């Protein structure tokens, strides 16, 4: 194999990647921005300040905050119990945590409809308690939580596994309480992985379409998240509106991506220091 051949191979591969990224990513992004601004800034601003658009943004943020908040707590608990304790059924739990990654979001949505909808035995109790889940905001939040819950625990588990349980045991021998042990010993270890998981979870929560679509009922101004609202506008041939809201979602995604890179860089630097 000559050096020259290597050079040809290298540049061919780079070209393929560049063309691929351009067609799959750059072009659509340009297209989104161009279409959003097709009728001028005025129309763009109007589309974004539309009441329904603002409500959709609000709901997306709300669902994302709920999902990230609950999944952070759940993720830490799950990762902690899987890595620090030995018990029967541990394998099952760690397999189940990954389920949302393999189940299609539409099916996830349907599962919740079956669980909380009219056919369910729970329905009467929920109705009596005045709680509506299907075609209501709680349903949207529930769906978002479901599709995003593996992200945080999956980031933390490998870090905790690599660390072992020695330091916690040392602290426990000194008489430290569980919460002190978590705060002083465990948390500093998982800090970066946790933040990274939060970022991934946020990105996924903002963009979720399938499961939310099944549970929301598409009530404009009530249960429409940004992705659902975009689809609605698009189906109604309001391209300026659809792409204007899309551009907003893209901006949010880019911010999250930037955060991700920063976190990855910082986390890596710190773990290098460890060696």
């Amino acid at each position, binding site marked *: 194999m000559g050096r020259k051949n290597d050079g040809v191979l290298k540049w061919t591969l780079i070209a393929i990647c560049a063309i691929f990224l351009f067609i799959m990513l750059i072009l659509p992004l340009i297209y989104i921005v161009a279409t959003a601004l097709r009728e001028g800034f005025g129309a763009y601003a109007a589309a974004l300040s539309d009441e329904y658009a603002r409500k959709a943004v609000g709901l997306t943020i709300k669902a994302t905050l709920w999902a990230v908040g609950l999944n952070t707590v759940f993720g830490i608990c799950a990762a902690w119990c899987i890595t620090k304790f030995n018990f029967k059924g541990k394998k099952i739990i760690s397999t189940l945590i990954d389920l949302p990654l393999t189940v299609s979001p539409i099916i996830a949505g349907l599962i919740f409809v079956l669980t909380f909808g009219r056919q369910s035995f729970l329905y009467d109790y929920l109705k009596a308690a005045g709680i509506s889940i299907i075609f209501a905001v709680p349903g949207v939040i529930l769906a978002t939580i479901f599709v995003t819950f593996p992200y945080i625990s999956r980031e933390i588990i490998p870090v905790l596994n690599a660390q072992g349980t*020695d330091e916690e045991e*040392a602290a426990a*021998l*000194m008489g430290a309480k569980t919460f002190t042990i978590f705060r002083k010993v465990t948390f500093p270890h998982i800090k970066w992985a946790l933040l990274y998981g939060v970022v991934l979870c946020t990105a996924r929560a903002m963009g979720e379409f399938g499961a939310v679509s099944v549970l929301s009922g598409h009530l404009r101004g009530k249960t429409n998240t940004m992705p659902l609202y975009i689809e609605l506008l698009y189906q109604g041939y309001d391209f300026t509106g659809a792409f204007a809201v899309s551009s907003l979602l893209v901006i949010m995604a880019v911010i999250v991506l930037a955060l991700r890179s920063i976190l990855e860089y910082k986390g890596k630097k710190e773990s290098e220091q460890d060696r």
Partner: protein
Amino acid sequence: MADTVQNYVELHDINKNYGDFQASHQINFGIEKGKLVALLGPSGSGKTTILRMIAGLETPDSGEIKIDGQVVNHIPANKRGIGFVFQSYALFRYMTVYDNIAMGLQIQKVPKQQIKERVTELLDLVSLKGLENRYPNQLSGGQRQRVAFARAIAPNPQLLLLDEPFAAIDAKVRQELRSWLKEMIGKLGITSIFVTHDQDEAMEVADEIILTNRGRIEQIGSPSEIYTYPKTAFTASFFGQNAQLEGYQAFHTFGDVPGADKALIRPEFVKVYKLDEKQQYPESASIGTVEQISFRGDRTELQINVNGLLITAKRNLGESPIAVGEQVKVFLYRIFVLKGEEVILLENEAVNSNYFNI
């Protein structure tokens, strides 16, 4: 082990299973106050398990653990007055040296000023002054071990447990740290148990050795006792630089042990003479050929073939040199004859005209 002596730590009939694997089997021993004791045995023989049960990090399935005369089975680990040095030290990676040492005192809510005094005193004791603001990853292996030691003794424990305290340290520094630790523990007068798989380490550092094998205790005794008078086949083969000898009867003037399997000899049991050298018991020496000579600094080590049996012997530098291929006279003072689990010490009858069973 006598009941008349007040033991500081006592284990009575301790058993411990992990699933269907028996990690500890009928463990019994007692440790006098102020003693430095080694739990010695091959890897996987259950040393760490015993140490962790004493600390309260594991619970025995049956049996009693007593510390200072009190049964501690149901006393939580942090109330047993124990300092523990973990095998990999388990220093808190995200805390400075100072905070590592201070942590135990902080948890006990000791006043800040007092903590400061104690930590300063300990930093001085383990010669780590000036490094209090470093993080563990900025220290050498030996320094980390000293931090772990200081951290363990900071709250003034009555009992110090150390799991393989030298395993993670370069061979060069290890020697130095062994004497350091022995001296330090002697100075503090704290009852200590340390785990090791290294016989030299145990013999050099410990007042007493507890030898473990497959979850059981093989023998307990002082280093010289356990080395010179092994009571089981395992103990005999664990210590020293043993060579196995099938058919020891080929050598002259050893009594016969009915049903014996094989014999062990240690280099110090062997004396080598050149053919023209004078020797004390000429009639009981065998003739062998030197196959290999290794230089060991203060002495040479010889591999000698005697009628097909390979024997290791040592020769001091002062003695006249021997060459490879040379014929020599080999005299064995004594051998360990193994018979099942038993070991029988046989003295050469030329020296001591009867053999005895121990």
